[in-house]
């Protein structure tokens, strides 16, 4: 394993230390907790709390700040944070207007966040939650856990965050978050596996000429393996699956995210975007804004995901609203 770390057991802690030392203008860490909150919190607004396992940096702590989250809770690598941590986050950021939890759809995340939510409600804090499930690689069925939450989560942070910043009520913020969730679809692929610091070897192995389609952001296997193809063909495959799940007509407006998994050169994401853009524009769909970069990663995995968010006037205004966080500055 080739990693720039000191000790796998202390990796999350040191990462959070390095993060808050870098961005005192944005964030601070709650003492003895893996909770990152704004250093200059805004009062009188609905508070947004998200989080999940570590290894997805800049998610989620990178989105704490003006116009996005109020707190992010970091679990161990690929492991949902524990309820006590989430509970402390909720308590720290609530200022009487209620708290919205933004959870990615994984059994562990849901159980831990819900337990925290119950604890907070017992203390009289108003808590609501939304569950992001944008990954169309996974079949949706009432008999299973449903779809995974991946990079589309960032759009939920961005848009619900803007709504909260503008003074929306807890119900309004929750409603708009759910509208995003209904309209955001993603799909990813991997060229290489990730390696967890505590494990020290790749979670899976791909042949020299193989790729994994529909990969999750935890290195959990995708839908199938295939021979590596030209970028354009890979893009088409992912986009087709997304279009199957997101009704888009000529004249519709979308936001696009081309998300690197952590070890993917920006050059390659740009090359992918050239095709993505063409396919969408050729359908008569208007791209309001494109985000290219490492937004929701999977440690040192090479690969990428595509996310499309169908916009209406409300979502568009909120998407374009100012944000000022370590990982997403927009004005």
């Amino acid at each position: 394993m080739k990693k720039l770390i000191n000790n796998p057991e202390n990796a999350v802690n040191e990462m959070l230390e390095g993060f808050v030392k870098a961005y005192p203008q944005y964030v601070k860490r709650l003492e003895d907790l893996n909770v990152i909150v704004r250093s200059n919190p805004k009062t009188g607004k609905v508070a947004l709390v998200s989080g999940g396992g570590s290894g997805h940096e800049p998610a989620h702590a990178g989105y704490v700040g003006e116009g996005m989250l109020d707190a992010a809770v970091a679990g161990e690598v690929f492991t949902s944070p524990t309820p006590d941590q989430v509970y402390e986050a909720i308590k720290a950021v609530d200022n009487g207007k209620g708290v919205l939890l933004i959870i990615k759809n994984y059994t562990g995340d849901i159980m831990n966040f819900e337990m925290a939510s119950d604890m907070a409600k017992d203390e009289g804090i108003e808590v609501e939650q939304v569950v992001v499930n944008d990954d169309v690689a996974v079949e949706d069925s009432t008999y299973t856990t449903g779809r995974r939450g991946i990079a589309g989560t960032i759009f939920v942070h961005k848009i619900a965050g803007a709504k909260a910043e503008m003074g929306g009520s807890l119900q309004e913020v929750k409603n708009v978050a759910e509208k995003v969730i209904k309209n955001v679809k993603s799909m990813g692929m991997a060229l290489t596996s990730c390696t967890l610091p505590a494990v020290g070897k790749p979670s899976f192995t791909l042949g020299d000429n193989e790729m994994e389609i529909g990969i999750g952001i935890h290195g959990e296997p995708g839908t199938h393996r295939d021979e590596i193809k030209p970028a354009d063909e890979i893009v088409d495959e992912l986009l087709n699956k997304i279009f199957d799940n997101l009704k888009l007509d000529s004249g519709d407006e979308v936001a696009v995210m081309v998300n690197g998994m952590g070890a993917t050169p920006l050059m390659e994401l740009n090359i992918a975007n050239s095709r993505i853009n063409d396919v969408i524009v050729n359908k008569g769909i208007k791209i309001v804004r494109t985000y290219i970069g490492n937004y929701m990663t999977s440690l040192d995995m090479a690969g990428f995901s595509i996310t499309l968010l169908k916009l209406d006037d409300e979502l568009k205004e909120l998407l374009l609203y100012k944000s000022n966080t370590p990982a997403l500055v927009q004005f």
Partner: protein
Amino acid sequence: MEKTVYSYIKAMRDIIVENKDFLTQLDAEIGDADHGTNMARGFNAVVEKLSEEDLDLKNVLKKAGMGLISSVGGASGPLYGTMFLKAANVAVDNTMDPNVLCQMFKAALDGVKERGKATKGEKTIIDAMEPAYEAFVEVIDSGGSVQQALEKALEAAKEGVEYTKTIIATKGRASYLGERSIGHQDPGATSFTLLLESILKNYMK
């Protein structure tokens, strides 16, 4: 049972730490490669919080449950934590009455089912735990010893693990794999079986 409850928790910790890489490897195949790390972190934390002097069954189980919940995370944290908490709820001081043990086992099983909303056949802890519970009760009900009950329970749990190889996961991380999860044994069912094994071994020591 003449051993302290602490000795059981320590035995669990030891078997989990011993099998850490194995559990993680199972999770890597169909999940996210953290189950061994999660469980080892949790049981290490629990043992650190306890001491040989902690003798009260209810209290130790409660501490263990809380400790697991606040140190494991992921899916296994709330599930194993709930397992211990629910068992603690119905534990009667230090009574080791076989019927109380049955009640504790049942409470634990129900707790896990309720928390995880899973039933048998979904490739989870339940696939080892439910048959283990049923075997345990059957032996006790027909007048068998606790050791016999534990032996049968372990046997049933192991069969449950084998069974998980044949089914598609519909809960937890592996559920996203669909058919590709077939052929791989479930990490959580495996860790539960290891815990049972450590209980039996410690009981017979």
